[in-house]
């Protein structure tokens, strides 16, 4: 990508000059690579601030409703699969570790290790999505999808809730779906970005001098990880779970 596209004719090259088609290692608006990579990292931190507000609004909403309806929320939380949730937490933490190693080897300029750990990170992230998908499937079987597959009577008969509390159960489950799906979308984007990085690394794009894309994607990956660490207690660990 850093090479000029030499297959273009002179006319076309004139047309595409100064467009996004051309990419230089050092963009023209920067003095040096150091300034450029610092600006890129800074930009990602700003973006993470917006993500905090994005999830923060959701966390606050769940917090308010949990405060209003503790019984229904805890009953509903107990039906979630906390085992898979916990295993997935471990999975994501390990993926953050491999992501850190990718950044480390990018700094050292070790291309082989960089690609190895990037692919490993993507693989572990995909494992998370696989486990999550399995969990969604079991939620589907257990009628835990309000608005689509949901059985009001079982909450009254089996769980001993009053009929007025059933909408509150739906509320909790809806937040569970919204938050985990948005998280999964974030993770999918992160996995895609990591795979693109691996491909670019294979094209010899990164060097100890220039590897800010790896650092930037690394930051994003960790954010996705941290969001899950908040989701686990907020969604899975509300009630008093019985082991076994």
């Amino acid at each position: 990508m850093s090479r000029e596209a030499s297959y273009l004719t002179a006319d076309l090259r004139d047309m595409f000059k100064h467009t996004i088609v051309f990419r230089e290692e050092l963009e023209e608006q920067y003095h040096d690579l150091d300034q450029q990579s610092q600006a890129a990292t800074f930009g990602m931190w700003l973006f993470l601030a917006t993500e905090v507000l994005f999830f923060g609004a959701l966390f606050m909403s769940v917090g308010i409703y949990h405060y209003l309806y503790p019984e229904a929320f805890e009953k509903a939380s107990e039906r979630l699969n906390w085992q898979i949730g916990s295993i997935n937490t471990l999975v994501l933490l390990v993926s953050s570790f491999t992501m850190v190693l990718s950044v480390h080897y990018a700094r050292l300029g070790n291309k082989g290790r960089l690609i190895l750990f990037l692919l490993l990170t993507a693989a572990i992230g995909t494992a998370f999505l696989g486990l999550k998908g399995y969990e969604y499937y079991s939620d589907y079987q257990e009628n835990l999808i309000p608005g689509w597959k949901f059985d009001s009577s079982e909450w009254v008969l089996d769980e001993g809730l009053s009929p007025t509390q059933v909408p509150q159960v739906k509320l909790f489950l809806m937040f569970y779906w919204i938050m985990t799906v948005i998280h999964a979308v974030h993770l999918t984007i992160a996995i895609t970005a990591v795979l693109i990085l691996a491909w670019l690394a294979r094209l010899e794009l990164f060097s100890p001098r220039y590897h800010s894309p790896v650092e930037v994607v690394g930051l994003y990956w960790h954010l996705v990880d941290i969001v899950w660490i908040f989701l686990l207690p907020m969604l899975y660990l509300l009630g008093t779970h019985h082991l076994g």
Partner: protein
Amino acid sequence: MPSEVLVKPILRRRPPQVEHNYLNASRGMASWLLTKDHKRIAILYLIPITAMFFIGALYMALVRIHLMTPTGLLLSPDAYNKSFTAHGVIMVFFFLVPVVPAVLGNFCLPLMIGAKDLAFPRLNLLSWYLYMFGAIWAMTAILAGGVDTGWTFYTPYSSQSSHYNVALTMVGVVIAGFSSLATGLNFIATIHWLRAPGMSWFRLPMFVWTLYATSFIFLLAVPVLAIALILVIVERVFGIGIYDPALGGDPLLFQHLFWFYSHPAVYIMILPGMGIVSEVIPCFARRELFGYKFVAFASFGIAWLSFFVWAHHMFVAGISAYSALVFSALSFMVAIPSAIKVFNWTATLYKGSITFEAPMLFCLGFVALFTFGGMTGLFLATLGVDMHVHDTYFVVAHFHFIMVGGMVIAYMGGLHYWWPKMTGRMYSQWWSKLAALIIFIGFFLTFLPQFVLGYNGMPRRYHHYAPEFQAWNVLSTAGSSILGVGYLLPLFYLPYSLRHGPRAGSNPWRATGLEWQTPSPPPRDNFEVTPIVVRGPYQYPQGKAQHEP
């Protein structure tokens, strides 16, 4: 060879017109639609944003004509609701919020700090595509079915009762919101990392300071709006009562989340306008901006406070008396930094050598109208008075004084100020001054009657009204038609100047900012040599009023 003799006079008769600038640096559709150049992206924004403004104005023309008689003249109740909603949604989310940052900010920010481009040019182009996509999406939803909730999308009406394209419109709004967010992120990174040598923080032009404050509001507020609207969409699609009291939800939660975005968004709309005024007034008064640091910090004061006043929209919505008291007090505090700015602009004018070109006329209009709007804001922050005028035309008049009298007029001032820089041509002085005057008069005639209407108790958004309100309504409609003429004038003389206007030269206003030290239109790389900044932005030689119009 005799050819030498033949060629030379021809060369002399045709002065070198092929100066290289950003407009002719490369040709073809692709060189525009894939460009990285912030100046071209600004032009790309200018065209659809102007179109959105006139579409939004058209919807309001329908409403104003309708309100000429107490029983309504033109629209069915349904069409009336859809018209004022379309007006609000288009004007707020697709015109007022993006316009100054995306058009003038995009064009001027790198020039003003001596940079070659924004920090992330690709992200900049992406935000243009997001804006276009969101705008086309929302316009499609509005034209094919429409929305009738009002621009605030209040629940439970928007989540349960409305049968129109609420969810689709919201998707468009969220997409356009992310476009603004990307622009804000880009501006902050640019201001932090790409200032020219010597451009210290307190040498930044005030327009840059206000864009910086605005960008922080974008970053922190837009995601909350996105989540609030996404929850409404989920509620509509899956029938879960997130905001529905019958199903355990709380409609007030929506109002909290919505105003946590939308009140700061009001300052998104006004802060860059204040920046423009702080550029224009020193230039046409030939004086240094009075109290530079105070104006800079006041911008941040406003941005900071904007996040702690949202519940003043909810005084009658059932929040506790205690929190209403706190939010009322916090809202009063916004008056302090706002007043600091107005006093500083006035002090800048004092003993200045003032001339009245079009940009200055617009900006003086801004100061007057903004003061009006700000003062009536204090009425609304007062709990007892707000009970009386809540949801009346008083509120409508108040926020139009800020948004139209403030932001739109400041934008017009900025557009007229930087137009010669953007295009290299000067527009007609006579017509532009006339337009400024007509807009000012039309604006007052349109919105001053609405204060009276609101104070006398005419509610906003009503299809019918009591007959005793008719005289003021007719006056308001008459004023709005004058305002409309004022808006249409620039649509003629500005494009006319592109071909027939005299060449502007690099610094037609003899302004001191960095952006005036490069040719007009600027070359593709902004500056031939990276400038080295040795002084503040407003070092005007006092007492010499000489412009070259």
